């Protein structure tokens, strides 16, 4: 059984659309757009996040843009609301993104609580999610690792719930596997770990727990060789997913011989 034959039968489905890749990548912190594109391709990412920001009036408006490097025909762009600290700003940002991307409805909602932790403000996140779903957006929501809150966000109508594994950009890895497990087991929408991954084994652990995908940015963009790390993450996601589907053995305290005991000499 090889991954080439299993991958098409195991798509990630978000808001009714199938994706072959379970690795979603951010586009921030790269050296230039060439590196952003090379890393996105090496990751095999189909969904890439983008931020919405004011243009710099006075700077050369004809300079290359991110969207030239990652055209919407080739990638599904996922505009985020990074930098928003209240529901109103997040909703405004999503409306701007929809206009910018010709009626595009899929967004990543994140409403942050403070600059030190970048933990989500869950009260404002819930408010924004309700408003956005009512306005026809397909909301993938960044949230804390609270199973009750994850359920509420699903009930509101979010198309994917994206709990953090550790603080954004921290690289601390999966700090909360039993919370994630609880969220995964209760969910009917895809659960995507968003934030906290540091290296490939972290991504594999998330997938082995049964997450439907992982979204990461800093772990790739901040690596010494981002393109190579993107490749490593792609393999880790595939390995973790396969291991989850294969079903791991139970943990036992003592040894269990792999070779038959009968027929030994002596």
């Amino acid at each position, binding site marked *: 059984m090889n991954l080439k034959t299993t991958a098409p039968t195991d798509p990630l489905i978000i808001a009714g659309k199938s994706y072959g890749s379970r690795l979603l990548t951010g*586009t921030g912190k790269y050296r230039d757009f060439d590196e952003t594109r090379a890393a996105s391709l090496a990751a095999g990412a189909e969904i890439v996040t983008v*931020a*919405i920001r004011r243009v710099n009036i006075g700077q050369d*408006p004809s300079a290359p843009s991110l*969207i030239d490097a990652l055209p919407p025909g080739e990638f599904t762009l996922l505009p985020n609301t*990074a930098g928003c600290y209240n529901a109103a700003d997040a909703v405004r940002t999503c*409306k*701007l993104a929809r206009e*910018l991307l010709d009626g595009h409805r899929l967004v990543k909602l994140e409403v942050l609580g403070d600059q030190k932790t970048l933990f989500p403000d869950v009260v404002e996140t819930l408010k924004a999610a309700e408003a956005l779903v009512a306005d026809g957006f397909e909301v993938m929501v960044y949230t804390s690792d609270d199973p009750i809150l994850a359920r509420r966000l699903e009930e509101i109508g979010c198309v994917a719930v994206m709990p953090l594994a550790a603080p954004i950009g921290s690289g601390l890895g999966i700090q909360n596997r039993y919370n994630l497990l609880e969220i995964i087991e209760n969910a009917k929408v895809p659960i995507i770990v968003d934030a906290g991954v540091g290296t490939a084994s972290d991504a594999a652990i998330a997938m082995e727990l049964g997450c439907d995908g992982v979204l*990461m940015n800093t772990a790739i963009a901040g690596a010494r060789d981002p393109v190579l790390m993107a490749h490593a993450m792609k393999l880790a996601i595939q390995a973790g997913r396969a291991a989850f589907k294969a079903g791991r053995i139970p943990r036992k305290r003592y040894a269990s011989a792999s070779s038959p005991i009968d027929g030994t000499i002596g």
Partner: protein
Amino acid sequence: MQIILNGQPRDCDAATTIARLLEQAGYAGRRVAVELNQEIVPRSRHDSQLLADGDRLEIVHAIGGG
């Protein structure tokens, strides 16, 4: 008259449309989105939407982010 463009004051002629302002700023034909006084102005209305003194205009685009 004066408007606030991306948080900064900017002088502009009376009877300036959004399309005209985008042209002056070098963004004609570029992929941007425009918000006027916290309401989206669809691309189809850039040619007809006039600016008024004190208007707050936001012009945004997509950049790298996670």
